[in-house]
């Protein structure tokens, strides 16, 4: 379809009709693939061709306008080209306006970043269209800032909207920023709140990046908002959107100005610091003057082999440790005690058992007195050591404290982490060395603690599901010659049931079903892990039943992190409870669960939830098949 209209007076409307019909039938790519480059060349300098092009698109009937406009926006190699091709179509034609400003931005989210750049750049290039740009920005910010949108829309859509916002910001000129500064500020504050509330780290990061960008735009001088987060590819990409590199520098964007100013400021700093170090300390090479008689040789050194690094001795007895940690003013000793505590506990189990609950209490409340490296990890390992040495009383203490007043969120989540790590150690003692590394958490650097351990566990469960084989000896290994009994067997119930008991009873400072969704999410993940580790224990049936009830009560929770946890619980349940028992005792519940899972697979907005639900359905299928395969 080589398209070269000849003659300047011919009616274009026929051509428009053909174009529209072809596009609407889905052949955008082919026709526009030829048309757009050709028109790009023709309209580069020729005004008449530009006007012809505009007429062309304007005459496309409304019912096909969307397809045509979409095609053009996607195909155009740049915003300026789009501007030449479409002219002020969006201002003149209502349908085009709707497609560009609403549909492509708010209702769809599958377009590439380049398409967004085209679209928003196009809106910014003409004064008539700039009002549309501002309106678009407002609507985008409204969506970005709405808490229901943050909670319910998929992360991909939120990323898309964030990108659009950043690109809009990059196009804004100074007077426009002035005029809508107040609105920008309000939207930013609301939006940041919803985003930081979310339990998914990706959404929190998105919120932080966008808020930082808005803040840097509206506060050109003075302190800007700065969050701490790990820069990854996504955030870097987002930040790069803020800086526009226009093909022709009409008005350099504000971000560019800032950047050049910063570069200029960096230069005078460098020579200044050079002046400052007067004697830049050129270290003279140590010259060997052989000619000089060395009178130092007369001095014979004494034996200095005893000269070693000074080590403050840590206490050797557990009770002494308790004394040091609770009362001592000597910070050196305190530090040494903290570092030595875990190994002391493990070497003296009998002595630890005498004071286990007291020690657990001290550790739970222990705060960093001096700057010890890895304090959080040291404390956690000591807690795990105490818990594994004397599981029942300490577990009872910790689970009761989980539901008590006046603990911080961090402490409650510490309790959960310690329970998980101890359970892991008790159930697979052979991995004693390995678990310390994989299970130990790194100190949180983010605004809210990350869910590292739950990701690890998810991976482990995934691997298990993939392998599709049930290993009957969880606590022992065929490789390891010396096998030890699964110590988790006798205490699994003590870890599990107290945690699940009080989740629906709100306290003044702690409401799992209300605000403290993050802790609920962590609790659910913890229960999933405990269930997983309880395979082959006596309590596993009872645990399974209780867990199923728990999951059932919470299955429609609005927070996606919680839902992911609930689905992990189901996975653990299906993996740990023996297949025959599941089918025998829990048939009805299983059927209900199956239908719920089916719903989740189809309707849940979160991709991870859908995936987990699908895995669970597969597991159930496998179970059924295995049982049917066994001859009765």
């Amino acid at each position: 379809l080589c398209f070269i209209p000849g003659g300047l007076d011919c009616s274009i409307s026929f051509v428009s009709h053909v174009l529209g019909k072809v596009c609407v039938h889905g052949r955008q790519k082919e026709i526009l693939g030829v048309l757009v480059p050709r028109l790009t060349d023709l309209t580069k300098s020729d005004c008449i061709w530009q006007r012809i092009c505009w007429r062309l698109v304007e005459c496309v009937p409304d019912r096909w306008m969307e397809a045509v406009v979409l095609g053009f926006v996607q195909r155009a190699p740049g915003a300026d080209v789009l501007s030449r091709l479409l002219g002020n179509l969006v201002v003149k034609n209502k349908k085009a306006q709707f497609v560009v400003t609403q549909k492509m931005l708010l209702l769809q989210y599958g377009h590439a970043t380049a398409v967004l750049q085209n679209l928003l750049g196009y809106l910014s290039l003409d004064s008539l269209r700039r009002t549309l740009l501002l309106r678009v920005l407002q609507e985008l910010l409204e969506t970005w800032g709405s808490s229901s949108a943050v909670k319910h829309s998929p992360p991909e859509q939120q990323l898309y909207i964030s990108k659009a916002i950043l690109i809009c910001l990059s196009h804004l000129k100074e007077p426009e920023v002035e005029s809508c500064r107040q609105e920008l500020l309000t939207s930013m504050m609301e939006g940041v709140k919803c985003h930081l509330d979310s339990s998914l780290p990706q959404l929190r990061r998105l919120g932080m990046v966008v808020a930082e960008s808005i803040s840097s735009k509206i506060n050109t001088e003075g302190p800007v908002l700065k969050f701490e987060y790990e820069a990854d590819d996504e955030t870097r990409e987002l930040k790069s959107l803020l800086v526009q590199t226009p093909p022709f520098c009409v008005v350099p964007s504000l971000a560019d100005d800032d950047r050049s100013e910063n570069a200029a400021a960096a230069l005078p700093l460098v020579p200044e610091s050079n002046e400052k170090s007067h004697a830049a300390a050129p270290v003279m090479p140590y010259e060997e003057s052989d000619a000089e008689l060395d009178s130092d040789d007369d001095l014979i050194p004494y034996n200095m082999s005893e000269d070693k690094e000074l080590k403050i001795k840590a206490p050797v007895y557990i009770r002494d440790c308790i004394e040091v940690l609770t009362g001592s003013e000597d910070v050196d000793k305190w530090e040494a005690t903290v570092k030595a505590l875990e190994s002391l506990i493990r070497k003296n189990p009998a002595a630890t058992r005498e004071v286990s609950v007291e020690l657990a209490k001290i550790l739970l409340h222990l705060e960093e007195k001096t700057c010890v490296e890895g304090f959080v990890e040291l404390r956690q390992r000591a807690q795990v050591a105490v818990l594994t040495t004397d599981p029942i009383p300490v577990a009872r203490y910790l689970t009761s404290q989980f539901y008590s007043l006046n603990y911080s969120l961090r402490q409650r989540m510490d309790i959960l982490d310690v329970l998980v790590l101890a359970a892991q150690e008790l159930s697979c003692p052979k991995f004693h060395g390995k678990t310390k590394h994989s299970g130990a958490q790194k100190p949180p650097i983010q605004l809210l603690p990350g869910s590292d351990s739950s990701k690890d566990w998810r991976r482990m469960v995934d691997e298990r599901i993939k392998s599709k084989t049930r290993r009957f000896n969880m606590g022992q290994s065929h490789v390891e010659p010396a096998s030890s009994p699964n110590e988790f067997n006798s205490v699994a119930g003590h870890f599990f049931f107290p945690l699940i008991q009080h989740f629906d009873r709100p306290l003044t400072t702690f409401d799992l079903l209300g605000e403290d969704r993050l802790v609920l999410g962590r609790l659910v993940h913890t229960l999933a892990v405990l269930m997983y580790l309880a395979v082959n224990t006596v309590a596993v049936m009872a645990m399974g039943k209780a867990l199923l009830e728990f999951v059932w009560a919470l299955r429609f929770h609005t927070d996606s992190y919680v839902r992911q946890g609930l689905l992990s619980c189901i996975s653990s349940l299906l993996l740990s409870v023996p297949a025959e028992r599941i089918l025998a005792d829990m048939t009805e519940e299983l059927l209900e669960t199956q239908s719920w899972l089916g719903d989740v697979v189809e309707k849940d907005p979160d991709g991870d939830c859908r995936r987990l639900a699908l895995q669970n359905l597969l597991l159930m299928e496998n179970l059924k098949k295995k049982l049917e395969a066994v001859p009765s």
Partner: protein
Amino acid sequence: MALPPPDPQFVLRGTNAAVHTLHFSCGGPDPDIPVLFSGSESGFIHVWNLKTHRVDTALDGHGRKSVYCVGTMGGKDRLLSQGRDQRICLWDLAEGRTSVTDSVFTEHVGFCRCSLLKVAQGRWLMAMAARSLEEVQILELPSKTSVCTLKPEVGAKLGMPMCLKLWQLNCGSQPVLLAGYEDGSVILWNVSMGKALSQLDCHQEPVMSLDFDSEKAKGISGSSEKVLSIWSLNEQQNLQVYKTHELVNAGISDITIRPDKKILATAGWDHRVRIFGWKKLKPLAVLDYHTATVHCVSFSDHRNPRERLLAAGSKDHRISVWSIYTQT
């Protein structure tokens, strides 16, 4: 096979408080009794008789506030002491007297020890940290007139002066001051003109102590980190780092070079006194006697080289006195 390090020749007990400063006065002709002055945290200055190893006199002149610097001005009858009561006291100890003849109110709340230099018969210069944060004041004693105030340039951010050393190349030349500051730098000041000649960044942490050998134009400084820094002064009066030496444990409270410039001693936070050869900083001995931080070391000024002693005062209330490398 190297010999094990020697034991102290004797140990002086009786201060009942951490010992912060020591000064020998043994240069007098016989039958003058060699003495050791010690200043302690309880505010007392003890005068130790080195023949009987007992306290002859205890001087109380700083209101029970810690005494962190003692020195003599021409013999053991004229004592100078500096304490945390923000005062420098001048004592007259001749013929059994124990009176404070004069005092200077420094208004300095830090720990910077003052430095004395004899410039003429009966005339001394004293450098001390003043009230203002970064300044060092030079006074003439006994007249107590201010010679000059050494102010670093605005925005220098040196912090407090931590240690001072006044010296002059020979009797007629200009006195100069070496000052170590909180930011780890050492500055060489020209006292008469009152301006800085050279600055050297030797340490990352505050300079705790320094000492200087005017003959070789080489000096050494220690700080709270593990590094000893040796620097030299060239003809243009510029300081340059000559060498650094890494220690086993961090923290040096005091450094002093023996008057014959053969060895030097460092007092460490790791309870140990280390002896180095001054020429090449060769480690010679580690004297491990004390059970707490060693706050000060001092060499004696005996005329007979064989009688020379080294004293170390520590937080464990004891003063250990050693006879080491006396043969050279």
